[in-house]
């Protein structure tokens, strides 16, 4: 299924990317070419095949992946906001969400 510029604009909206008109054009062409390569997958019969979401990383018993639910120190408010572009009194400040 060929991808249209309208599709690209919709995906950009979903992905919160404000594309320039040039990017919208070039992505339409490039994504179209990548997707047509991907269509190749339809050659394979995957009836009754289970999807693989991750690799097995250890013993079959997955219990090792859990740790005790104990309280331990976290980053703390000061460090947590230290890298923020616009911190204010220990909070993240953002543009207005409601009204205005």
């Amino acid at each position, binding site marked *: 299924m060929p991808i249209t510029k309208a599709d690209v604009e919709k995906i950009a909206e979903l992905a919160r990317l404000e594309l320039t008109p040039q990017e919208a054009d070039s992505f339409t062409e*490039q*994504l179209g070419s990548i997707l047509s*390569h991907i269509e190749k997958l339809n050659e394979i019969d*995957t009836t009754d095949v289970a999807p693989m979401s991750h690799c097995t*990383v250890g013993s079959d018993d997955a219990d090792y992946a859990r740790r005790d639910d104990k309280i331990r120190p976290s*980053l703390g408010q000061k460090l*947590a906001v*230290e890298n923020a*572009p616009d911190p204010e009194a220990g909070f993240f400040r953002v543009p*207005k969400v409601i009204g205005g």
Partner: protein
Amino acid sequence: MELSRLTINTVHNRLASGELKAVDLCGAALARIERLAGLNAFITVTADRALDRAKQLDRAIEAGEPLPPLAGVILAVKDNMVIHGVRTTAGSRILFNYRPPYTATAVERLEAAGAIIVGKTNLDEFAMGSSTENSAYGVVKNPWDTTRVPGGSSGGSAVAVASGMAMAALGSDTGGSIRQPASLCGVVGLKPTYGRVSRYGLIAFGSSLDQIGPFANSVEDIAKILNVMAGRDPNDSTSSNVDVGDFEAGLGASVRGLRVGVPGEYYGEGLDAEVRASVEAAVKKLEELGARIIDVSLPLTEYAIPVYYLIATAEASSNLARYDGVRYGFRAEETPTLKEMYSRTREQGFGAEVKRRIMLGTYALSAGYYDAYYGKAQKVRSLIERDFRTAFTECDVIATPTSPTPAFKLGEKTDNPLEMYLSDIYTITANLAGVPGICLPCGLSSSGLPIGIQLLGRHFDEAVLLRAAHQLEQAIGFSATPKGL
């Protein structure tokens, strides 16, 4: 002092005997980094921090303390692994000023074992690329021919080791990002089994594929580094509890009787004739060492790239949603609403390849397309993994080329993303199946560019993989280094 010829063992012995000071070794590395700045291998050089650590190590040695296993090892770290207080950019404008409040587990373990980190290396933005041309901090050049790419995405790490700016380096490998640049730069690079090394503190790209691994000048050094950083980490639930053991101990054993699988699918159309000849000659050497060469089949190889570029981009689109201008990094100015702030920040903060992959991944996960793309890719991934399990009932390791060609020219593939993706064809399958893979140099092309052979092993069977690689390395005796630097 020529770092590219120094092994971990040599440095260890010289430090122990007192004929070498860590601070002098570190100084030599920093001087070389400065002299070779034109290669653009580093985004951040941590000179003061490195010299402080070297002095501390010298004092400990003078005080008669036992040397830790990686004492004085000059290490470079790909700039997508966090180090407390050291700027970490992931090669992206969106993290131009990020100073992490914690340190990646792999890095922490290596530093605790005495390694000295001289800096953070350049990479394709968020590790997305095969040439290290996608960095917001400029392209990296191949030391063997500075008009060519070093491979990617861990290009800076490969170059740092290849050009003697560091004795070893850390990279990350989601679809070949350690092995392919190792091949193009003539060094050894290992992608361990998925789960072998903790990813805590690795900036996420494709979480079901990402794995941290080392670059070094020899398989022995790779084994020493893996010994230190492998193993369960409570901070990464995907890190494995499988026994680590000692990867160095068995390196000297013979490969007599080892079954080496050669999959025809990796030697077909698109493979450069010189690369093929060099890799086949290396396989022949394994046979001369007593290994049995067996034809195996990995029939779904040609479907690996489409599977990868759906799964990796879907995971990336989700992982990169966190870069929204709120908690860290770059924020676009003068955006009246929150939504505009998000989308303009991401528009200005991300480069073209990252946007392209976010777009593709978002599409693959969006309503109406999920089953046709992402779901289908996950099913084919199951079949690819099954192919590997079947092949590994017939053989113990698999030998293939690492990259279809030696290093290509800077700019050669930047206008054609699909062609760039196809350069990962031999490395991507190991990430999809989760198996370990190592690349080591096996020769030079007629134009003097390194060629690498890839060996793949069973899940968590790095011991056998490294033994085969070490024995082959000794038989090949590759000793060339880049000239004219």
